[in-house]
Structure formats: C-alpha cells, structure tokens
C-alpha cells in the first residue's frame, strides 16, 4: 500500500508537449512520469473548481435539488455561495444527510452579494453548523457519477438568496 498526493494546481500536465529524444527506449523513470500525468488528468487537472450562476431566493424556508457530477477520485467538496440577505444556507448530499450550514448576514440585495465558504474537511463527525466541507461519496471511485445536492435556505429575516454556487473538489491523498 502506498499513499499518493494529488497536486491541486497541475499546470504542467495541461500544457503537455513532452517529447523524448530520438531513439530512446522506455526506462523505469518514465513509468512514474506517465502514471503521474494520468492520475492528475483524472483528478485535479481534468476537474477544476466550477462556479455557476443561479437565482435561488427565499423569504421563508425553501429547498432546491441541484445536480452534481461527482469527479473521479473525489470524496469531499468545498462549497461557496454568492449570497445576500439574512438567513442560513444548508447543503446536504445523499451520503452526508447532516450536511453543512453557513450563516448569511448581509442585509441588502443581489447587487451587494458576498461570498461565504465552507472551511474544508474539519472532522467527519462535525455537525452541520461547523461549516465544514460536504461529503459527496462514501468511498473513492474512479468514474464520474451523477448525484444531487439539496440546498436549503432557512431562518430568513425578510429575504435571503444565492446568485452563484461554486463547487471545489477536495483532493485528498489516496491509498493505492
């Protein structure tokens, strides 16, 4: 068993253009180089964070189901919401029904929105109020798979809304 670290900013493999000298043969050091590029393509280089606009607005308590294509090798994601108003935003997944919750304290309109972010993997047992990352898979898998997140706006004072959602895959060391 070995632990492998996934580089989160893998610019070199995206640019490619690697060519061996003429008439060289495959040697052991090339095995590792090929393997590293393949792993990064399937994880961080092939699946960068994505940010999309939306318009989820609530004056009381509302929930929305949104799609998520889980990338290979990813068990947890951080979330960021561009939001306005006053309330709470709770996100849950099919494998993390406790979920994560963020406070929004930004009375105003969509024009004065601010970003709120989850805070990475704190502890899998941490409660929803901790603002931790959201677990989206129960175990590492190496294919894409569709799932859904439930976003709930609650505890609203007058109005609370979300105008963009960012999903940021967390690349943990993997055991192979």
């Amino acid at each position, binding site marked *: 068993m070995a632990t492998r670290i996934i580089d989160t900013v893998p610019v070199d493999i995206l640019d490619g253009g690697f060519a061996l000298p003429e008439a060289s043969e495959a040697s052991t050091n090339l095995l590792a180089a090929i393997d590293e590029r393949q792993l990064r393509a399937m994880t961080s280089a092939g699946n960068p964070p994505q940010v999309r606009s939306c318009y989820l607005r609530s004056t009381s308590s509302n929930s929305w189901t949104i799609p998520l294509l889980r990338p290979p090798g990813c068990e947890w994601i951080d979330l960021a919401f561009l939001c306005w108003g006053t309330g709470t935003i709770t996100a849950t997944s099919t494998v993390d029904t406790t979920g994560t919750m963020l406070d929004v304290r930004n009375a105003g309109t969509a024009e004065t929105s601010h970003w709120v972010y989850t805070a990475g993997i704190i502890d899998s047992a941490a409660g929803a109020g901790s603002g931790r990352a959201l677990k989206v898979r129960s175990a590492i898998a190496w294919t894409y798979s569709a799932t859904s997140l439930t976003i709930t706006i609650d505890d609203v004072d007058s109005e609370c809304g979300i*105008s963009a959602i960012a999903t940021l895959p967390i690349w943990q060391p993997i055991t192979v």
Partner: protein
Amino acid sequence: MAYAPIAGFAGAIAGTDSRWQSLITNHGEIQDTLTPPIVDMPRIITSTSTSYQTRLRFYVRRNLAGHSVRFVIRAAATTGTGTLRCYVGGNSNTAAVSGGTANYTIDVTGDDDAECLVEMKVTSGGDSITMYAVQAYLVTDGAEQEWTAVGTRWYTATSNAVPQRVVDDLLNGPALLLQDRMVPLCYHVSDIEQAISGKTFEVWGTENITTQQPIGRLWIPQNDSAIRTCRIDAYTTATGSANFRLQVGSKIISWSSTGWLSTTMEIGPGPLDVWAYVTPTASTNAAIRTLQIWRGDY
C-alpha cells in the same frame, strides 16, 4: 575487433512488464472516462407555450467527432404534459415530460465546436412544465483528434523494450485529452425568454437605466499556476443599442454587438472576481444571457 552492439544503459523495460500493461490500460480508460461537465446548474424555468421556445443556449468547446452530449434535465409537468428538445449544432433529440419531478436524459450526437440549445413546449393550451436544473456532459464513443490509442500488443507480443513513439503517446495522452475536452471555469446560462424589468440579476439584465450597472458576478478559484489564454463565450440580447462589459480580475473587455461574442483573454492564475456590466439606452433593455469562461482556447 569487430563491432558488437552492447546492452542499453537506461534500464529499458520489456514490453511484457505488467506495469506497462497497467499504464496502457489506464491510457485507454482515461479516454473513455474523462467527461467533466459543460454545465451543471440549477435554473428554474416554466413554459406554457405550445410552440418550442429556446430557453437556454450555451457552447460546447470540444472536438465532438464521435461523441454525444448528454443532457440531464430535472423537470416536472405541473399541468398536462410537455416536451424538452435539446440541440447540439444541427442535431437534436427530445423527451416527453409528464407527472412529478424527475430527471430526463437526452443524448444528442455531437457536432464539432457546437452551440447547444435547450427548448421547451407544452402539449396543449393550459398545460405547464417547469425545468429545475440542467446538467450536460460528453459521452465518449470515438477517437480524438490528436490523442493516439496504444494497443495491447505492446504488452502482450514482445519482450523487447517499448519504443519511444509509444512512450511519447502515453506521456502526452493526458495533456491532449485535457486540451480537447475543455472545461468551463465559470458560467452563467440563463433564460433567453425571461422579460427584463429594472435590474434583473436572474438573467443579468437591466431596463431603462442609462448608466453602467453591475448586473452579474462570478468567481474563478485558483486553478492554474500561471496565466493562460482562456476562451470567453457570451450571448447578449438588447431591444436597442447597448454596451456590455466584462471584468475578470483587472482585465476588461467591452462590446456592443448582440448575439454571440467569442473572444479570448489572458487569465490567471486566480482567484479572480468576475463582474459583468450592461448599459442600455433609454427605454430599452439589455442582458448578458450566457457567459462561459473556458480554461484554455479551443
């Protein structure tokens, strides 16, 4: 003394080595598997029209030869029934919508570097269907433009060292796939038909406001370690003349034509704020209905 070739110095590995088998298998599996989303977003749109209306339009900046685009649309028929129709370039496919909320999967054969449309209609007057979310991604079923497959013969047929050309293909395969399957870093895809009243952050539009207005915001998290040329696709509408402006970090582009704008911008390494502005003329409206910022330039 006669010439006699000597054994290689580099520690060459025979093609029958099981580690080559794993790398060559993975080389093909990545080509089959790597399908990051083109869009993956909530967007609530209701249709009561008995004729098809284009409600969403966005680009897929990829070589689509031999591929399909899969649309997964979460929708419900509130009253009666309806139909979803998705286009990729000139090809289309449909799904009938009835009953409560469900995911409808529509596969459309690829067309190179194509515009995608999502259209909706109801069956009869008085019917109503609602779309809640849209996901689109590539379904792979064909060869790539530059990516080269590596056959299993390299680990089953020879105990000689694997030659340089095959190793080159393995080394560069991941980069060629990533360049061919561009992903958007951020996107705004909104309802083409939605009316604009005042400032509308839902579709990034304004009406009858003749000073420059911020009407949309996104964000590019850190995704690269260097500046990269990124493609930008924006679809705009206006009932009169208008100016549109996009600011990514400290860089700005402005334009006044409606319809599709496709250009490039040097972006990176992030994180960067993205601001969109619209300035319509008096008594008119204008909107940026779609904005896609791609990582790379197809």
